[in-house]
């Protein structure tokens, strides 16, 4: 009989079967759709693909998507870092409620989130008449899209930072303050450098979601071509018009964005793992160089310790 490699390992046949199954599943549900997006996009050849992307409406959709992401991310970084810092480093009443609130966007359907903004800022909404009177457009305009995107992407950065900041504790910040640093100096020189990789990770995820968001944006944007259409909305419109090449060309841009996101995410994860490994590295039990007297220690006090 052949001895097994390890008592805990499954027999090779089981391992191979399970791995194959997982790979097949991945290929079928992730690989195939991705391939088909590019296949459809290039179905009419490269020139048609480029023409579809050069279409003014497609270009304005790409530009709008980038603008929304650029508007959302800085705000999310500020709010996310602030919220995570407060939650991770201080004890206060209502902390659990605040954590739940931060998770709310994950729990609520994006369509509902969009509707909430329509109800608040829409023509028939809470502030609608006042906004109309002052000629401020929020719903069916850029501010509405930014707000809705902000809402659905809010948890990414805070969620990523809270456990990281909790693990790091307050001591380094206290040390900085006791050395005379001001609050800002502490933030720029100690707090942010310590969380930079976690923050970047959160930003990458939030960015992917911001550029890909459909539901909430769909409700507040009004689908005005060339004006309030983001890339995901543009894909839907073209598809509904049976413009296969155009729809899939736009979709391929989103797919490439996804691939870039994955790459960046992996790179950051790798960096983060290295840093955590460095932080949790066991201290070598190195001795302090013996003092000049060179005496080796025996207990100076004959006090036996008894717990």
């Amino acid at each position, binding site marked *: 009989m052949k001895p097994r490699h390890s008592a805990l390992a499954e027999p090779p046949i089981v391992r191979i079967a399970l791995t194959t199954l997982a790979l097949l599943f991945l290929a079928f549900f992730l690989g195939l759709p991705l391939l088909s997006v590019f296949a459809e996009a290039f179905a009419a050849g490269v020139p048609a693909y480029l023409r579809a992307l050069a279409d003014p409406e497609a270009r304005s959709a790409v530009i709008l998507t980038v603008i929304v992401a650029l508007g959302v991310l800085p705000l999310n970084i500020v709010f996310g870092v602030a919220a995570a810092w407060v939650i991770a480093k201080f004890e206060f009443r209502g902390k659990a409620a605040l954590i739940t609130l931060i998770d709310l966007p994950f729990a609520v359907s994006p369509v509902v989130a969009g509707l909430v903004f329509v109800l608040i800022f829409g023509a028939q909404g809470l502030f609608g008449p006042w906004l109309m009177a002052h000629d401020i457009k929020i719903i069916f305009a850029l501010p509405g899209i930014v707000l809705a995107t902000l809402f659905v992407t809010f948890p990414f950065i805070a969620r990523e930072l809270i456990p990281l900041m909790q693990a790091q504790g307050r*001591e*380094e910040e*206290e*040390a*900085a*303050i*006791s*050395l*005379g*640093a*001001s609050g800002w*100096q502490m933030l720029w*020189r*100690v707090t942010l*450098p*310590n969380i930079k990789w976690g923050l970047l990770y959160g930003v990458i995820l939030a960015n992917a979601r911001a550029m890909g968001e459909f539901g909430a944006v769909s409700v507040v944007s009004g689908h005005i071509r060339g004006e309030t259409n983001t890339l995901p909305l543009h894909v839907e419109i073209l598809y509904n018009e049976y413009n296969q090449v155009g729809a899939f060309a736009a979709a391929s841009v989103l797919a490439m964005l996804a691939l870039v996101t994955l790459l960046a995410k992996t790179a950051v994860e790798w960096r983060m793992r290295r840093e955590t490994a*460095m*932080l949790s*590295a066991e*201290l*070598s*039990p*190195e*001795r*302090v*160089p*013996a*003092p000049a007297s060179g005496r080796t*220690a*025996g*207990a*100076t*006090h*004959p*006090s*036996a*310790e*008894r717990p």
Partner: protein
Amino acid sequence: MSIEIRDIGKRFGDFVALDGINLTIPTGELVALLGPSGCGKTTLLRIIAGMESADTGQVLFAGEEATHLHVRERQVGFVFQHYALFRHMTVFENVAFGLRVKPRRERPAEAEIRRRVMELLGLVQLDWLADRYPTQLSGGQRQRIALARALAVEPKVLLLDEPFGALDTQVRKELRRWLRRLHDEVHISSVFVTHDQEEALEVADRVVVMNRGRIEQIGTPDEVYSNPASPFVYRFLGDVNVFHSRLQGVWAEIGRPPSGGAAAASAGSGGAAAEGGIAAPVATDDDAALAFVRPHDIDIVRAPQAGALQATIQDVHAIGPSVRVELAHESELIEVELTRERAEILALRKGEQVWLSPRQVRVFAVPSGGEEFVSGSGI
């Protein structure tokens, strides 16, 4: 700079962390706050540093009100148990931090910063590590860097929170000797928190023993060890045999200086030393009293003598430089510590009958309902 603490109190919800603490730390002294975990010593240190605010009372630096000063303005150097080095900065930058964050007009020039930092790294004997990151250092090295960093801003007071708590025994022993030498060199008023009695007794000029948010005793290491003010201090600083009231009858039977016993019984909770070699505290009708005898204050003799207690040897262990003997007297267990030489002369064996002759006994009357004293005495 001297530190004065007046009637400081602090609560966390229902938990009283500090209760009416009064303490004066003269300029240039190295003081240890010693106590079991949860006794409030770290809270007191953080209140001195300004990282925690007291509910009541005042903190004075050099006679001046400092209770409401911000940490930044207190000019204290703080050393944390887990070093709290800035992990993304080199050792050099860690030490330079305090100088770099100074307002522009007070900030030294780059060359001056370099000189000061290297000087401090020389002081802690780690200048060869300037370009390393904290994660590349051992625990002892990290703590010395943390100390150099705290000293860089020339603090008026140095506060250390369990500075050697995270280190292993050997490193801890060497570092505390090193800290003592460093303190003798820079001579800055320092307070360090520890739960290790040996550490406090070895390093400090004065020891403040704390328990349950109160100060039990303040004194030189020698005073608190050889003249403990309360049963708690007795138990906390080293081993002790505690004889309950019912045992006192036995002690009284054997050795009987009645006057000493009477004094002890009337001494109240503060306690009084029963003077004269063989103390036999007679509690008379007041039976709630405890007698404390350190294991190394008991001698073992082969022949019965006045004031000696008969006991049977249960076990003999050689522990490092001393020999610990466990004996039974009736149902009570007594621990005696002898030097190796003495143990060799006696050649004790299990099951032998011997006599115990205490050299120093101290008696504390237990206040009625003093369950604290009665519980967990170990005897």
